[in-house]
């Protein structure tokens, strides 16, 4: 009897220790965030002299923010809306078009559909570095061939994202659609639906969970991506995204850490704020997508 009581007591203590350990680790993990926040409220000299202390004047934060909003080489509003446009358009096109492809690939049981699916899968192993140099060249070639500019345009970037996002999205949709019973679709056909109607009215709403997963997965990738935009848009391009804008600013003002950290904070803030609201979806989307 006594022994059990003792054991409970010790495991009770253990939990406390673990709790303290977890809080400590959390503080370590948050240290960089804290550094960014306190140093984005400092002027140029203050950052260099006292990077670890609290800022003397929080008004410097407002000044830094105002500076970021007006500096031409970061162009915050412009690059923020560019990021929004590119991310949202890509998400929508990747999501809907991949779902369409995956659906016909699942529901058409021929050797062609299997071959095309395998072709998509093969695309998953290709790292971007292998394709990036010919891609830049292709953008130029396409302009020469069709007269439509592709470098530093929205549709150019979005088409590239559609191509690179297709394999994973088709794969995930494929797996999900396979688990949906075909009976509903057949019933709809008998009731007089055309095939496209079946897809858009019946199948697409059922795909919602996997659609959300892919929104998160592709959204995080596209919003934070650097290598593809830097190649097809360029650091100072008119359609530059937020990461490019930050890199551009950091390249221009090498040592002005107060400004750079403010821009970093303003680039990271949208996603972090979104995370506070949609935490469950984001964590679930990012991990379940990877495990499959």
């Amino acid at each position, binding site marked *: 009897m006594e022994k059990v009581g003792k054991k409970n007591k010790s495991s009770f203590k253990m939990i406390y220790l673990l*709790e303290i350990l*977890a809080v400590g680790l959390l503080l370590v993990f948050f240290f960089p965030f804290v550094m960014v926040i306190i140093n984005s409220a400092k002027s140029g000299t203050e950052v260099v002299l006292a990077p670890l202390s609290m800022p003397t004047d929080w008004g410097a934060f407002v000044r830094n923010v105002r500076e970021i909003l007006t500096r031409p080489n970061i162009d915050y509003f412009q690059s923020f809306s560019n990021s929004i446009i590119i991310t949202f358009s890509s998400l929508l096109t990747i999501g809907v*078009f991949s779902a369409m*492809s995956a659906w016909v690939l699942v529901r058409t049981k021929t050797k062609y559909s299997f071959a095309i699916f395998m072709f998509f899968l093969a695309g998953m192993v290709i790292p971007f*570095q292998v394709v990036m140099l*010919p891609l830049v060249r292709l953008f130029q070639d396409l302009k020469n061939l069709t007269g439509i500019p592709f470098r530093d345009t929205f549709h150019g970037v979005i*088409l590239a994202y559609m191509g690179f996002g297709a394999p994973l999205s088709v794969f995930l949709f494929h797996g999900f659609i396979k688990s949906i019973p075909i009976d509903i679709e057949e019933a709809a056909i008998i009731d007089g639906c055309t095939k496209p109607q079946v897809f858009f009215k019946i199948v697409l709403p059922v795909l919602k969970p996997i659609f959300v997963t892919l929104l998160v997965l592709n959204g995080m990738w596209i919003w934070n991506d650097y290598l593809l935009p830097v190649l097809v848009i360029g650091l100072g391009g008119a359609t530059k995204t937020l990461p490019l804008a930050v890199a551009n600013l950091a390249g221009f003002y090498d040592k002005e850490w107060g400004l*750079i950290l403010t821009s970093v904070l303003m680039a990271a803030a949208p996603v972090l704020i979104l995370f506070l609201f949609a935490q469950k979806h984001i964590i679930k989307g990012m991990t379940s997508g990877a495990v499959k």
Partner: protein
Amino acid sequence: MHFACLLESGATMIFKKIGLTLLYTFLSLIAIIILPFFSVAKFFANRFNLGNNAFIFDFEKKRGIVATFLIKHWFSDSESAQNNRVFVWFLFPSLGSFILFVFVPFISGMYLSMTNWTGLNTGRELFLWFDNYRTIITDVRFGYSFYRTVLYSVLNIVVINVVAFSLALLVTQNLKLKNVYRAGFFMPNLIGGLVLGYIWQFIFNRALVQVGGIFTPSLLINGESALIGLIIVVTWQYAGYIMMIYIAAIQNIPQDLVEASTIDGANAIQRLKAITLPLVAQAFTVAMFLTLVTSFKQFDTVASLTQGGPATQLPTWLGGVYGLSGDMPIVQGTNLVAMNIYQEAFSRNNLGLGQAKAIVFFAILLVVSLVQVYFNKKREVEL
């Protein structure tokens, strides 16, 4: 003032712009797939003196084999023709852009890797067969990059997985704030690699040097320790993510198994060995695969943290492999393969050579990840 009004007009503007962008994207996709087809058709028409009208089908007049086939399988109202139409049009956007922007560059990349393409001689480059690949084999800097990438990847895989698994064990205990911890550890993963590199460059070079100890002078100044700095940064970013995978696996362990072992008198370490580890083996495979691939492809963080630097001397043993003696050449400490490819192409303008490096990189990545998955699967079965 009219802030709300301003915000609203901004939002509608962005929505309009997204709509227009989508329209333009789709139109240009159609254009780039159909226009080349026309120019090819035109080329053949000129070649065979067929005139410009040769490719317009006149269905009333000539019902050749092609026309009959098309009508039967494409234009008619029969169910199979309908299915064919849906099949092609539904596949068209994603398959088209995938072929155009991934497959075509991949194939043309194989050709370009055997040329002396420099960016200035685009279209006039010479075909060199395997000269670029020969250059790569004898290039000591690429060898060093490769060695650094392997070293970095191995250390990174071990550190990230150990940290992530420990965190996962910690936050699956019966802690009060466990959801807060999980979200907190996960948070760095939301920030892009590039932005994150700037944060840590500041921390290593400005903040931690004032703390002293091992952080003075900055880790990023020395070629050897810069790699450790990079591992710290990437672990901070990635451990929370991998932790989530382990959490999912640990929570899938049947609770009665844990209870049974507790009743049988197993202590925490025995439980970990006999139950937790074997049952999360599959998660290990996934996590190791993910960390391996991301470590190998690491670019963004390096680009902003160290730009591939700092300069350091080539290790003597590696110089020996390449038959060098005496003073070793200066190399870049965190010049990982992805960075090396980028610099070869854009700093030194050797795009052909850079492409060859990229293909070597791809081949190695493919082999390594296949081998890794194979061994992990085998171990999974044994456990």
